[in-house]
């Protein structure tokens, strides 16, 4: 058995060291990463993957700790992937989400992993998704992915999670209205944490107003829940809602959506491999250098140059699908 086969076997048996090693392989995106995923792929699909996102200061990690405890009370096992940003200048990261969850680290039914965004070309979505798949294959009933609350990535989380929870808290400085539109649209459940604060009810009303404006043909009505993560108030109700959403997902209509999702994933994978192989070949041709200079001199635009190169290889060149 090769090392990768051993690790895959360990993951499927729920061995924590194997799980940890497997996630590292995914993070480092070594050539074996793909082999690893292919070895566990037929075992995924049982876990409920929940994404939780929101601005810093909203109490995400504290809330997750309470959510995990509630699931544990119900006899479920949980994996948590906590994502923090990599510094674009130094390439390093301070991963501190775990601090609030440390009491759970010795619970055998809980596995917590901190991941840095690492400025992956495609965003953190792919690596985080694969890490969630590993926890799924390892037998975790629930996988919670926590992401940073600023920028593009919290909208990317929809590619990772089946249920998206957006969390906010009153008095954070940024107005509720400033929440990115994309975030409002992807939320399956909205949570106002620190609901013991004065303006919590106003925050709920503000969210309600925006959600009503966004009212497309939605089969699932996004609820707004109030929690106080520090005391655990509102958490059992939140977990009930999560379970409700899970049941909703199992219905046929969502099955169709996941087929579309699979198509999108396949196309993405094809694009990635095709692009790399084709570009490599085209570089070797003399015309490539020539066209580079022409682009530099503004004699031709890049899209036309690309078409010239590709026409030599393909009968028909289509533009962006």
């Amino acid at each position, binding site marked *: 058995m090769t090392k990768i086969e051993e690790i895959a076997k360990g993951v499927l048996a729920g061995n924590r*060291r194997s799980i940890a090693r497997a996630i*590292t392989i995914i*993070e480092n995106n070594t050539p074996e990463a793909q082999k690893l995923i292919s070895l566990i792929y037929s075992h995924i699909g049982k876990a409920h993957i929940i994404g939780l996102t929101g601005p810093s200061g909203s109490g995400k990690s504290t809330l997750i700790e309470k959510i995990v405890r509630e699931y544990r009370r119900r006899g479920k096992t949980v994996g948590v992937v906590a994502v923090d940003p990599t510094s674009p200048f*130094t390439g*390093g990261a301070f991963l501190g989400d*775990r601090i609030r969850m440390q009491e759970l*680290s*010795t619970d055998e039914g809980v596995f917590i*992993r901190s991941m840095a965004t690492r400025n992956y070309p495609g965003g953190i979505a792919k690596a985080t998704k694969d890490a969630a798949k590993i926890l799924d294959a390892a037998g975790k009933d629930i996988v919670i992915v926590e992401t940073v609350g600023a920028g593009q990535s919290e909208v990317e989380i929809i590619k990772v999670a089946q249920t998206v929870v957006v969390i906010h808290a009153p008095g954070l400085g940024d107005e509720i209205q400033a929440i990115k539109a994309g975030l409002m649209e992807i939320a399956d459940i909205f949570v106002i944490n620190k609901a013991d604060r004065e303006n919590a009810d106003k925050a709920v009303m503000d969210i309600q107003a925006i959600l009503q404006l966004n009212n497309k043909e939605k089969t699932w009505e996004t609820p707004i829940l109030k929690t106080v993560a520090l005391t655990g108030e509102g958490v059992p109700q939140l977990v009930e809602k999560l379970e409700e959403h899970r049941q909703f997902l199992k219905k046929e209509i969502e099955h169709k959506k996941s087929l579309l999702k699979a198509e999108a994933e396949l196309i993405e994978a094809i694009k990635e491999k095709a692009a790399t192989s084709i570009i490599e070949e085209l570089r070797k041709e003399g015309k490539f250098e020539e066209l580079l200079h022409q682009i530099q001199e503004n004699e031709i635009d890049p899209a036309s140059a690309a078409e010239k190169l590709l026409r030599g290889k393909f009968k028909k060149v289509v533009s962006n699908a």
Partner: protein
Amino acid sequence: MQGTRKIRVLIAKPGLDSHDRGAKVVARALRDAGMEVIYTGLRQTPEQIAETALQEDVDVIGLSILSGAHKALFPRIMKLLKQKGLTDVMVFAGGIIPEEDIPELKKLGIKGIFGPGTPTETIIQFMLENVPERT
């Protein structure tokens, strides 16, 4: 697509002391040197530290302790790491550790001990030279 390997470091505070300014200074320096730093927070048990190191698959563990309990806690931590199969992790320590205790700690397998005032560059250099190779 090329892979990216990063050095993952666990900065842990075993025992009951509540002073983590030094630990945070080191954590930030390591981050600025391009490493991924997981910080446990205060008052960690040896079990919590060893299990965290396992789940996070770290390359290095830095133990920060100012309470004088290193002689009680460090052997337990090293034993747990061994039990969990984490024999290829480099462990270093910092804080208030008397010089006469250092040989004993080194015998436990702790590779470096850095007292207060050690320049962060020294620690970074040490780590880059001693971080174990991963296959």
